[in-house]
């Protein structure tokens, strides 16, 4: 195998891992505030469809990213209204949100199936001018790929080093305590869901505008669920989520590598790895896992009336 092919595989793997990490970070922020969103798949679909259609309409991919992020935040607002304000069951609301996403994204994207867009431009890395063009083209990534690790670190910094993040983590552990300390558990949870929606929306945008560069119904193909698995795998820590996403990218690379070197391993079976690995890791960590999950995760906060 030539260096060039290897580099190509690594580049593809990074591309496919980026949207996953954004989505996982979005889910992670919500879960740290105690809110599970099983509808992440739907959020990704709607933001991908929105991002793609806005890009196709305006010809500006950055506008597409912005629209996708807002769409993600709006989807999370629906979930938030149901589970925070109306105190609905989080799992049921999340699944309903998933079906909503299936439908809404098909509706938004219906006119844009097969449309051509200007993809997210790739930025040149300074200092690569001396490299042969074929190599340089493979390490030329778009801005969202360059930003994904800094964003993950930023999310970590927000959660662990700011007063706002302390509030988010506190509300995930014990909303009553937050209430007693004079802050509103509800509004903190909304804020966390909004940030999470923005991040997931960016992930959906990257999928449609930079990675696939087209829109088709159900194009996320289960990425939302991989992202949820990744959050658990990462023990609700943004920095570990980077490692998890890298592991996923490595798995994709490995899969492509096997295919290109003539090994006949079913891509379907290889795709089960992220789920099985997460399950295995959970089983091995066993009882200790529970200490890592936010204590009030999934619980309805009834308030103090």
């Amino acid at each position, binding site marked *: 195998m030539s260096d060039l092919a290897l580099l190509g595989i690594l580049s593809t793997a990074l591309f496919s891992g980026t949207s996953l990490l954004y989505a996982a970070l979005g889910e992670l922020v919500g879960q740290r505030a105690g809110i*599970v969103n*099983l509808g992440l798949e739907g959020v990704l679909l709607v933001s991908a469809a929105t991002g793609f259609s806005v890009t196709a309409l305006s010809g500006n991919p950055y506008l597409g990213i912005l629209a996708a992020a807002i769409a993600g935040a709006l989807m999370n607002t*629906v979930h938030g*209204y*149901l589970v925070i304000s*109306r*105190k*609905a*069951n989080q*799992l*049921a*609301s999340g*699944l*309903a*949100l*998933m*079906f*909503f996403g*299936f*439908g*809404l*994204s*098909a*509706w938004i994207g*219906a006119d844009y199936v097969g449309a051509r867009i200007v993809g997210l431009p790739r930025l040149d890395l300074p200092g690569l001018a001396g490299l042969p063009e074929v190599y340089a083209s493979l390490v030329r990534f778009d801005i969202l790929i360059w930003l994904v690790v800094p964003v993950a670190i930023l999310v970590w910094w927000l959660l662990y080093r700011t007063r706002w993040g302390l509030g988010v983590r506190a509300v995930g552990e014990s909303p009553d305590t937050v209430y007693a300390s004079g802050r509103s558990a509800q509004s903190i949870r909304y804020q966390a869901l909004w940030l999470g929606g923005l991040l997931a929306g960016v992930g959906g945008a990257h999928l449609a505008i930079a990675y696939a560069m087209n829109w088709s*119904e*159900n194009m996320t193909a*289960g990425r939302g*669920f*991989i992202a*949820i*698995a990744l959050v*658990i795998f990462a023990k609700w820590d943004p920095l570990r989520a980077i490692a998890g996403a890298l592991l996923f990218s490595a798995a994709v690379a490995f899969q492509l590598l096997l295919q290109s070197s003539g090994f006949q391993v*079913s891509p*379907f*079976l290889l*795709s*089960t790895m992220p*789920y*099985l690995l*997460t*399950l295995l890791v*959970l*089983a091995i960590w*066993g*009882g200790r*896992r*529970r200490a890592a*999950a936010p204590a009030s*995760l*999934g*619980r*309805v906060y*009834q308030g103090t009336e």
Partner: protein
Amino acid sequence: MSPPEQRGAMTSVRPSVAPVLLRYGATALVAFALFGLILAISGKDPIASYRDILASTLGSTYGLSEVIVTMTPLLLTALAVAIPSRVGLINVGGEGQLIMGACLSTWAALTFAGLPAWLLLPIMALLGMIGGAAWAWIPGQLRARGLVNETISTLLLNPVAALIASFLIFGYWHSPMDTNKTAVFSESARLPRLLDTRIDLGLIMGLALLALFWYIMRSTRWGLEMRALGGNPVAARLNGLPARRYTIVALCLGGAVAGLAGMAMVSGYYGALLANFSRGVGFLGFLVCWLAGGSALGIVVTSFVVSIILAGGNLLQLTRDVPYSTINILLAITLFAVLARPDFTRLRSAR
């Protein structure tokens, strides 16, 4: 992820009927108005669309039979959630269990195609239940040993099952004509149909199992013990109930019922195994069971209503040129509207 409030909601007492009906009516109205708005934005006439949906589903014998065809797997996947919920377990893995059941019974249909129906169908049903139960046994064991919460593990195993099904179909089972589905099953591997319609025996199986579930929960020792474990696990364990065994058995029974739904879908509705055939029926089962408060009668009523919406979506696609998935918006808005009013289950029972 399985706090007591949620368990309470699953097994709550029903409040008096009239205000509930009124609220459901208002809820449905809100949902239909919102979806009408969406139809209007895309330039379709909402009122005519709704007339089409109603006329095509409830207005004719054929339409009604299509609603019941859609309802059949929902009855079973909702029951697959209801059984474990009585012990306080949350099974979000109906989708995966259904797919595994479908896979195993497809194997039987393809391997023993020559057997007569009276022998082949029971074999397929049995294998379907084994497939679903096996897929639920893994989360059951993990939960009973205190290793992994069943909500997470059942959820994670769904995509794995879908991928295994794709692996089998694309790799081995596909027919010479298509790559994404098996050949049509032999006539002996098809569930018999009722009264010259597309309704098959799966409906009878679903209704019978729901009746059995209702009877067992109400009138047997097992039902009492399961309700005790779901209601107050600590007290139940102190009274010597085998909590671990019930955890595994309840999840496996739920999985078996979901697997049977998978068998009914491939043997009755499709007559073949298709990649991604389930279209989220397993997840819908969770929503139906949750909305129905886990009661047998409630599951029948709720899945009937959900099926009207889904069957209507098929028609909208044909006559109004709206993508099929769009009907999920109406379904979801209806669910949102019900979820936004949790007072008719949780708050009342908590009082």
